């Protein structure tokens, strides 16, 4: 029996159908990301779990108990919002202790728990500050402590990092993950940033137009995308239109070039997906050639754009002192492993 | 708050605001016994005293707006361009008229500019009119300055000015051809509020003894039965038209500006 269970959730606002037949089972202590572009319904799913929105159809259960009809304040949910949402009139300590206070916890117990939480987020000396005296990263950590202080069953994070600077974003996301692991709290994290989702999660739910396109580990979602949308949204992907000329061996034609994919494919046109880092300037076992259109030196990585039979491919190479980046106009032969080539289902 | 309670509060509030207006209009129409008529309005509009005081107040309002804007627009522009540090002080000055009761200020005028003073403004009709206009500018200052200042802040005054100067424009040209058109909406919205204030003003005009619309209203109220309510209805209509026009202009300007 899974800890958090969302079954057949549906939600419409007026004429727009925001969430369709959404199913998800989360184990206790699991970190799940809802990943998708804005308007894909991920925030609506989160708000239904929190109880801010009532699903039109479907049910939500937490720890075996159906909470679909339960009000927000009885659900035992901790939530962190995008724009911090700290109470500006209360100090850090009062913010963190708010949940315990409204539940009537004894004062001594509150202050002990507040101390504990502030130590956990690394801000033990900021107890008497007001939110406006803190940086964005500090405010968001206080918001996390506030959400966790009443020991919720589930932690919901609604794009908690998107208002922060790039540098703080990375350090805070690691901190969130460490705290989550230390407490073993079941967590749902909403984000539009695939790097965040991949690096933090036990499993990722990729959402598109209100539907969960794929649910899987970051490794699965990245390397075996279930739909064309997932393939394109998660990571950078080269797509190549090709023609299957031998169905049994999976041989495809790219202009005059041939590529053997070693798997049966239906004859006719096909779309192939290739990650830039799966293409190598040396080695094989298979090869393609193309003309270098651009060669961008990005520091640790060199990104080269190659024209293969009229289609542009990006390929990433690690920087090396022993090899200069290829020059524009030069003919480049690069290798790949046929098993790394994704065959993408036609867009449905 | 439940939705029902919200409706209840709003409806009770609306009743409080609508009843006096209904009472006023009903009274103004009741001059003829037993039926509604426009007699009170007819009498009022035919009263030469009405025409004189109404005309006087309209003229004063226009003079107030023109002179006030000649004072406010260049100052607000100059402060934003050259003396931004002075802005809080100027803003504070423009808010003072909300703090100091008008009756106190006009009392000061009477003491300061009487016939035996260094500037005997109250000694002549023209002088008193000028003094009253200055008082009205003072009353309108918070509204005019704020509107113009906000309008100026929305356009990049410094860049506009530099561009014009690089093309060889003089200060007069810059203010008249460049700044004014850009803050015209703000000027107009400030002007409408000022117009509404001047048309209804009583204290200053009464104490300076000028034949304005406000004192005339009060006089009628003390002596007539139905006409004052026709006048009050007219005054309300003027206020409504002014504030409505102001809001319309502000909204129009917001839509016209790319966000």
């Amino acid at each position, binding site marked *: 029996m899974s800890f958090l269970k969302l079954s057949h959730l549906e939600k419409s606002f007026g004429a727009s159908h925001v969430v369709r037949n959404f199913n998800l089972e989360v184990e206790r202590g699991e970190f799940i990301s809802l990943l998708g572009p804005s308007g894909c319904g991920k925030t609506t799913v989160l708000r239904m779990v929190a109880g801010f929105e009532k699903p039109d159809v479907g049910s939500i259960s937490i720890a075996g108990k159906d909470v679909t009809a339960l009000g927000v304040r009885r659900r035992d949910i901790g939530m962190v919002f995008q724009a911090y949402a700290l109470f500006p009139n209360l100090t850090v300590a009062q913010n963190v202790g708010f949940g315990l206070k409204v539940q009537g916890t004894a004062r001594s117990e509150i202050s002990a728990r507040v101390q504990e939480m502030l130590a956990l987020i690394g801000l033990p000396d900021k107890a008497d500050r007001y939110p406006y005296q803190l940086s964005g990263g500090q405010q968001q950590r206080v918001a996390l402590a506030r959400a966790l202080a009443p020991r919720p069953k589930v932690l919901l994070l609604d794009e908690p990092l998107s208002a922060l600077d790039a540098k703080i974003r990375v350090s805070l996301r690691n901190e969130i993950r460490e705290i989550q692991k230390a407490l073993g709290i079941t967590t749902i994290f909403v984000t539009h940033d695939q790097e965040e989702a991949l690096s933090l999660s036990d499993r990722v739910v990729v959402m598109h137009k209100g539907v969960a396109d794929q649910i899987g580990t970051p490794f699965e979602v990245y390397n075996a995308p279930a739909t064309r949308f997932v393939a394109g949204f998660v990571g950078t992907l080269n797509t190549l239109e090709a023609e299957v000329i031998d169905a049994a061996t999976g041989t495809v034609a790219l202009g005059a070039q041939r590529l053997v994919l070693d798997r049966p494919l239906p004859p006719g046109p096909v779309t192939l997906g290739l990650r830039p880092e799966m293409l190598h300037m040396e080695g094989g076992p298979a090869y393609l050639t193309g003309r270098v259109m651009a060669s961008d030196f990005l520091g640790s990585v060199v990104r080269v754009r190659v024209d293969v039979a009229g289609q542009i491919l990006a390929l990433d190479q690690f920087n090396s002192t022993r090899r200069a980046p290829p020059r524009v106009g030069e003919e480049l032969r690069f290798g790949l492993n046929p098993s790394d080539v994704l065959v993408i289902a036609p867009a449905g | 708050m439940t939705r029902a309670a919200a409706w209840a509060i709003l409806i009770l509030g609306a009743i409080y605001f609508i009843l006096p207006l209904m009472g006023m209009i009903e009274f103004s129409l009741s001059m003829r016994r037993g039926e509604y008529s426009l007699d009170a309005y007819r009498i009022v509009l035919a009263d030469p005293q009405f025409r004189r005081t109404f005309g006087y107040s309209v003229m004063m309002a226009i003079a107030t707006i023109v002179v006030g804007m000649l004072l406010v627009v260049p100052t607000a522009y100059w402060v934003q361009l050259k003396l931004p540090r002075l802005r809080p002080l100027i803003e504070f000055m423009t808010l003072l008229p909300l703090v100091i009761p008008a009756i106190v200020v006009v*009392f000061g005028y009477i003491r300061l500019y009487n016939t035996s003073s260094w500037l005997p403004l109250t000694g002549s009709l023209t002088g008193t009119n000028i003094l009253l206009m200055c008082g009205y500018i003072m009353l309108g200052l918070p509204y005019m300055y704020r509107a113009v200042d906000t309008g100026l802040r929305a356009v990049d005054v410094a860049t506009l000015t530099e561009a014009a100067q690089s093309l060889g424009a003089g200060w007069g040209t810059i203010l008249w051809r460049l700044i004014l058109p850009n803050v015209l909406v703000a000027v107009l919205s400030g002007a409408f509020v000022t117009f509404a204030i001047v048309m209804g003003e009583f204290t200053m005009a009464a104490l300076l003894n000028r034949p304005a619309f406000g004192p005339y209203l009060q006089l009628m109220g003390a002596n007539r039965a139905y006409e004052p309510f026709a006048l009050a209805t007219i005054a309300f209509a003027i206020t409504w038209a002014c504030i409505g026009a102001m809001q319309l202009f502000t909204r129009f300007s917001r839509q016209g500006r790319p966000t």
Partner: protein
Amino acid sequence: MTDQTPHSRPPRRFNPAWLGVLPFALFVSMFLIAPTLNIVIGAFQTPDGSFTLANIQGLFTRSIMSSYWISIKISVASAAIGSLVGFLMATAVVLGGLPRGLRAPLMTFSGVASNFAGVPLAFAFLATLGPLGLVTGVLRTEFGINLRAYGFNILSFWGLTITYLFFQIPLMILIITPALDGLKREWREAASCLGATGAQYWRMVALPILFPTIIGTFALLFANAFGAVATAIALTGSSLNIAPIMLFAQIRGDVLGDPQLGYAMAFGMIVITAVANVTYIVLRIRSERWLK
């Protein structure tokens, strides 16, 4: 050590840009500052110009004190009720789940009503709650309620207070609505996630955040009512001795004028409205610090 001397700073030179605000400075000095200062100084002078406290002492007579007192009572009552009702109406429209289309008309009407003070407003209320007024008549003929028998009189403390509310409530609505918009939806959601009831949210978060604005606006409404002359004169003539009417009469010379006493009365009004407005400004700054 450098050879810097304490006098190496160049003398502050005159900045010609200051000339640009000269007309404005002149106007404000002549028609706002000087007249007010004249009154303030006059309050502490004998007719021949020497310093005295006698004028201020003269304020502490029974009739003047009672006129200030009733003015303060009316101002406090109309500011308190105006703040409360304005707050409730704004909350109903902003947070009460009413159709969004109601908002713009309410704001426009508030703009009109807060400027519809003075003589015409007095007439509107005479026509409604006066002896022959619309509501008075309907209550008497349809419901058999005689307002007079209940001690109600438009020319009284309550009459004036009810009339003042017509511009006090809209002013509150105009000022409090942006503050209510400043309450973030997330605050309420965060509170309910943490287990707070609606009442707890209002008591512990929303009201403390709004408090400076509410009290500050109360101070502004107080000053607004305290300085209102025209409505009072048109409504009551001189039957109710509130401070602005007393001063008006003093200036007109209706009451045998000791002009120095007039200065002192005006000075008293300045002091009271200034206290109210300083309160407003201080609290306003505090609330803006929070809502950053």
